[in-house]
């Protein structure tokens, strides 16, 4: 042992020496803060906008999008080609990434001097909100006026990509992006099983609970649910939440605005109902150990009467189940007010660093035009506006119908994790614990209330 100690001593000294050298190196760099002072964001006036971009000379437009799956990939490729055919002076330099990969790399890309012109940025505070706050995106108000986007897109859709210029208020202020597709978190149901059980499609919470009980009695799995990944909990809890809490409260909670409370009577009812359903065995057993994909795939194979999920599963479920699958909006609770979680796909935004904002805006206008929407529908996706019910059938028609109803009724409420930058982590973990019974409904709600109220009061 003594031999060891003696032989390592000089090493120690040398290590110390290197450490000191490194510390000296650090001392020189520590002083200056990382990042850059936030810009103010460019305000483009509609009279400065050039909508005829064919006269602008050769331009290369850099676009980062996440349209990588089947129908989406085909639709965007076709639109890009059509755009460059219309404007031969424009070349599109496209980077495609999956949603998570895009989200992960966008922060670095958007802050560099060589930022892409058009990016698809997630609506929530963590992404779009932070970008707006730091002046990294251009306000599209001028273009909206020049291109008539205000008429093309209803307020409910535009508000999901709107922020005040300081990024503090979500859902109001300037427009920062336009989306191609819509999405709703509703209920997929197995038509054959419903008929077998002698049930109608449930329209109220009472109907729905009766259906759940009937399904459980018949040894069917009432609601297919896999929450291993955490985020599906936002959808399934949100679905219960929608049936109890008034729309405007959900909006305030979801957008992180003053005026609501997580501990209100309706929220207590929602959280308690969720745990009651868990205890009654209405959800997949051990759902915290089941993945999202295995869960909906299991539903597609005929296990489960209901599946709470987003319209993005349309193509997959349609293919697997055909005639047997249907889609409806969430049941309506006692208030008689319909609410459904949803909104738009990721909006396309123009970065502050873009030198060709006019071209970028023309591109966004093009890929969200009426013709574009038709292509999107044909590709098996839900167009955010201008869907043509006459051309849709089966599941697509039911989804389009639900989307139209929700839009006309102003029933769409935001995802609950939009609220604050930390809310995603918080609510996914909390719903898992609520479902596992390791936190009680009141603890669950007070934890959410703490984060929400400290964020709201800090604004």
């Amino acid at each position, binding site marked *: 042992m003594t*031999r060891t100690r003696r032989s390592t001593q000089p090493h120690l000294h040398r290590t110390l020496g290197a450490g000191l050298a*490194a510390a000296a190196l650090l001392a020189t760099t520590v002083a200056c803060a*990382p990042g850059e002072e936030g810009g103010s964001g460019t305000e483009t006036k509609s009279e400065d906008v050039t909508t005829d971009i064919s006269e602008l000379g050769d331009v290369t437009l850099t676009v980062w999008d996440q349209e990588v799956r089947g129908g989406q990939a085909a639709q965007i490729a076709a639109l890009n080609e059509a755009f460059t055919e219309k404007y031969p002076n424009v070349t599109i330099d496209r980077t495609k990434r999956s949603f998570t990969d895009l989200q992960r790399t966008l922060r670095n890309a958007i802050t560099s001097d060589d930022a892409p012109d058009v990016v698809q940025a997630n609506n929530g505070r963590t992404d779009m909100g932070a970008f707006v706050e730091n002046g990294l995106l251009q306000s599209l108000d001028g273009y909206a006026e020049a291109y008539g986007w205000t008429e093309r897109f209803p307020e409910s859709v535009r508000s999901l990509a709107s922020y005040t210029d300081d990024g503090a208020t979500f859902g109001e202020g300037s427009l920062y992006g336009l989306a191609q597709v819509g999405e709703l978190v509703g209920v997929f149901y197995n038509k054959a099983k419903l008929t077998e059980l002698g049930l109608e499609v449930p329209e109220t919470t009472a109907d729905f609970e009766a259906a759940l009980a009937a399904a459980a009695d018949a040894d069917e799995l009432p609601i297919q649910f896999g929450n*291993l990944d955490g985020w599906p909990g936002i959808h399934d809890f949100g679905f219960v939440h929608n049936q109890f809490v008034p729309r405007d409260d959900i909006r305030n909670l979801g957008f992180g605005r003053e005026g609501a409370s997580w501990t209100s009577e309706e929220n207590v009812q929602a959280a308690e109902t969720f745990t009651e359903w868990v205890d009654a065995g209405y959800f997949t057993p051990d759902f915290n*150990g089941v993945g999202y994909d295995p869960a909906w795939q299991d539903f597609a194979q005929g296990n489960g009467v209901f599946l709470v999920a987003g319209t993005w599963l349309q193509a997959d479920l349609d293919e697997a189940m055909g005639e047997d699958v249907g889609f409806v909006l969430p049941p309506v609770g006692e208030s008689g007010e319909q609410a459904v979680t949803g909104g738009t796909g990721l909006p396309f935004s123009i970065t502050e660093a873009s030198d060709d904002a006019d071209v970028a805006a023309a591109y966004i206008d093009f890929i969200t035009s009426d013709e574009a929407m038709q292509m999107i529908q044909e590709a098996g996706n839900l167009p955010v506006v201008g869907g043509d019910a006459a051309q849709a059938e089966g599941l697509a028609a039911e989804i389009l119908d639900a989307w139209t109803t929700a839009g006309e009724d102003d029933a769409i409420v935001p995802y609950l994790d939009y609220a604050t*930058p930390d809310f995603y982590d918080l609510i996914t973990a909390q719903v898992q614990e609520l479902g596992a019974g390791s936190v009680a409904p009141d603890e669950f709600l007070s934890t959410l209330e703490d984060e929400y109220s400290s964020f709201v009061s800090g604004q």
Partner: protein
Amino acid sequence: MTRRRGSRAPGEPRLVAYAYVAPALLVFGLFLLAPLAYAVQLSFFEWDGLGLGTWVGLDNYVAVLTDPELRAPFLHALVLVVFFSLVPVTLGLVLAALMTRSRVRGAGFFRTVIFLPQVVALTVVAVVWRQIYAPTGPLNDALRLVGLDGFARGWLGDADWVLVAIGLVGTWVGTGLCTVLFLAGLAKVGRELYEAARLDGAGFWTELRSISLPAVRGELAVALTLTMVAALRTFDLVYVMTAGGPGNASRVPSYEVYDRAIQEGDVGTGITVALVLTALILLATWLVNRIAGDGEPA
């Protein structure tokens, strides 16, 4: 010995030597020290990765030491050390000793099978084990088959079992590496030594303790270092299998770094966790090499 060039002995550092190591030093400094220095710099700021950072001094470090939410991942990592490192090293020793002691038919085959998990990418391993642990997966099916229905559960969705479940995957992966390392170490020992010991009446455990263990001291240090580092910096398994859930029951430091710095836009805290983790790993390797390595370069 005649002295040339003053008092310097031959082989003593000369200035020209620095010229030889300069390119390596430069690369090392540029790609390792500089980013590390930048990381240390970032750890003194509250920064969202977009705007201007705010100097917060040692606040981030204080948070890592005092905030239970930030401390918990380190405790989880310690649990994983047991499964990723201590158990595989022990199992590896026993397996290697067994395989050396008796000639097994098809030993090469077993060696390959044991080592196989090591060559599969961890994300692939994670995807497969996620299915194995599913409530209706093969593991629970097997438990029900032998009548242990009460034990069947959604392993990755159970806060009490999730770390054990992830840990056992680490055991499965690490055991092969340890076994192969120890086999190599034991191959250096002459068979006569074992024969002599056996003539003196030594059993399996005496052999292991008196011959095999001292013979593989160097390999032991290597195995412990490698597996411990793997345990402490686990990311892929957690990211793919549970994303830190259920609740926060399986969040580990590397996942915390990723989540804070990339997902939440809380770069300062994330980087601080990363630096503390780095320090921990350095400490662990240093300790292992002092104790098990016996001063030999491992």
